[in-house]
């Protein structure tokens, strides 16, 4: 039980007063951000990247993880009380949760969601403890060709699995890769796309790209289409669950993670797909199927549990392989890069204190979140009354602070605005933002691994596919790319049944 003793050491790290403070700040911020419209955990972590300049890595990641989990908790509150999901992961919570709230059972819906997040997060994090060291041990021998294959998989997966249009996903990815090219070539020191300017020689900082695309782009896009009449929140009392509800919710709570965790670990867009799958599953298994659509508590409990478990699954891929599967993980990866730490199989050997402290803090954060959210849900709902001009002005303000903190250069603010305008255009024309961010963050690393692999094989392309691991990954990529054609070739059995 090597990981158990490591975990106990991790609790030693996580329970120091300072790290407890960061965890508390993280879950508070995360819940607030989950409740607030227009600002998601990815944007929040991006806006907080500058604090990495003044904070030790362990504290920073404990805070970021708190924001990630807290965002999931808070997101379902808005879904249930306002029918406007704060995060894409909370869309499903609105389907059953909002009818429940309108029928005067908001308190039960909130409790089912909060306990679901707690159960999902706990089970997911336990799976993370069990699985992550094993995955890391298996992956410890992987070399440059394997890393390159994983990164290509990340590129293809974020463009093909997410969003409605592949071509727009690829366009977004290429924009990101292009931004990643700017600066000195890491291997030869050759200037690329700098147009001879000294300011661009260091490249465009990942912080500026992430803040520009997530924060400025979003704020400007909302400004262009700001809803003039805000929705009304349904007043609600303190969340609680009766015996009858508990009997209906405990199974969905336990089933959710089984769906959420694996989907979080693969690059399939985080919590959106598993929450929906969990909803469909609960609907099929429920004895109260007629209540679905009109406020069935199972439809809140299962998906919410799945969404928190998917966050834990995401951390498995990010920590053991350096593979970001969601926007939050991508920005956290950027934070790792800021510290000069390379997430991957060796992370568990090189930075045990950081990794296990982070994992232990997830358990601590879960408990804090349950305590914060169960009794205080009505208080959090009050955040929805914040005037929108202040909210979006605040986002622009903190984005400016963050970008300026990178290097103290006013020019960075101009670059930030330009990238923000790109982000605005991407939202206007349906180009997903995530592929661009993944492109910027992983692009330079992928190029390095590619060149390293080909250097080893002396230029022979076979050097990219000379390990079983890389061959497997390329096979997965081929399936992903060919999926639209495979789907057409498959018998139409499933879709026909769905139409019945």
């Amino acid at each position: 039980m090597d990981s158990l003793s490591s975990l106990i050491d991790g609790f030693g790290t996580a329970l120091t007063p300072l790290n407890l403070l960061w965890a508390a700040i993280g879950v508070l911020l995360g819940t607030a951000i989950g409740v607030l419209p227009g600002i998601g955990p990815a944007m929040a972590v991006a806006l907080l990247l500058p604090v990495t300049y003044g904070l030790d890595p362990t504290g920073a990641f404990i805070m970021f993880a708190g924001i990630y989990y807290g965002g999931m908790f808070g997101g379902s509150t808005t879904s249930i009380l306002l029918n406007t999901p704060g995060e894409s992961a909370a869309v499903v919570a609105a389907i059953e949760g909002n009818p429940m709230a309108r029928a005067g059972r908001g308190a039960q819906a909130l409790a089912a969601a909060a306990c679901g997040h707690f159960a999902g997060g706990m089970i997911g994090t336990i799976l993370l403890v069990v699985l992550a060291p094993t995955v890391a041990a298996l992956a410890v021998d992987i070399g440059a060709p394997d890393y390159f294959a994983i990164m290509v998989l990340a590129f293809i997966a974020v463009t093909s699995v997410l969003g409605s249009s592949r071509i727009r996903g690829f366009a977004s990815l290429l924009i990101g890769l292009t931004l990643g090219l700017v600066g000195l070539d890491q291997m030869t020191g050759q200037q690329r796309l700098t147009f001879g300017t000294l300011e661009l020689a260091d490249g465009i900082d990942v912080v500026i790209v992430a803040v520009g695309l997530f924060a400025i782009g979003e704020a400007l896009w909302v400004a262009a289409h700001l809803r003039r009449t805000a929705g009304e929140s349904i007043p609600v009392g303190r969340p609680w669950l009766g015996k009858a509800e508990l009997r209906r919710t405990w199974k969905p709570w336990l089933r959710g993670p089984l769906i959420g965790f694996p989907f979080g670990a693969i690059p399939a867009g985080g919590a959106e797909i598993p929450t929906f799958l969990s909803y469909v599953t609960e609907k099929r298994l429920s004895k109260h199927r007629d209540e679905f659509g009109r406020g069935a508590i199972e439809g809140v409990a299962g998906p919410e549990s799945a969404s928190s478990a998917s966050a834990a699954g995401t951390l498995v891929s990010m920590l053991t392989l350096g593979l970001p599967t969601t926007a939050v993980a991508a920005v956290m990866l950027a934070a790792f890069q800021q510290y000069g730490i390379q997430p991957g199989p060796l992370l568990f050997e090189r930075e045990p204190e950081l990794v296990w402290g982070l994992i232990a803090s997830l358990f601590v954060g879960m408990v804090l979140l349950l305590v914060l959210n169960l009794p205080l849900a009505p208080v959090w709902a009050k955040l929805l009354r914040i005037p929108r001009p202040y909210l979006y002005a605040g986002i622009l303000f903190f984005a400016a602070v963050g970008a300026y903190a990178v290097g103290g250069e006013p020019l960075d603010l101009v670059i930030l605005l330009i990238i923000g305008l790109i982000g605005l255009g991407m939202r206007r024309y349906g180009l997903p933002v995530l592929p661009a961010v993944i492109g910027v963050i992983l692009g330079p690393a992928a190029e390095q691994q590619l060149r390293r692999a080909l250097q080893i094989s002396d230029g022979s392309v076979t050097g990219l596919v000379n390990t079983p691991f890389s061959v497997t990954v390329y096979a997965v990529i081929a399936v992903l790319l060919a999926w639209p054609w495979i789907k057409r070739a498959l018998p139409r059995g499933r879709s026909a049944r769905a139409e019945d």
Partner: protein
Amino acid sequence: MSTGTEPTAPPKGSGLRASLRGRSELGVCLILLVLGVLVLTDAVTMDTDITQRGPIGPTTVPIVVGVLLLVVAVLLAVDVLRGGRGEAEGGEDIDLTEPGDWRTVALLAGVFLANAVLIGPLGFPISGALLFWGSAYALGSRNLTRDPLIAAVLSLVTYVVFNNLLGVPLPGGPLMGVL
């Protein structure tokens, strides 16, 4: 994103103009095309023989990215001309039934640029407060006592937290020199 790409732009002439109307998305293709050409030109004109190490030099990846940009630009143009439309992103505070309010966006961009210019001479506490107040004003807040007050407090607190507590230096400007 200029007002020229607005669907409400007055229809001028017919023929090509008319067929392009409502297809402002072709502008995205154009941008991708320009970007591709830019990346390729930069890669081709690069002086590579100084420090070539390994079989792949600094130009290979840019060439691949550049070519792919051109390919995607063309494919996207085909998609748009066939009637494909990028779905504008929704959100809780977003009302897509109204036409885009690009005046507010331009105002916000202006306020943001002003901050970039003023942060040096005026220092962060003043330029940041102006940024917040200006943005809130552009977004429709017209409370002439509360808005500047919040802006000033937020800016000062942020300055102290970053500059003094987190150790991330921000320019204090003349105001901090006086205090």
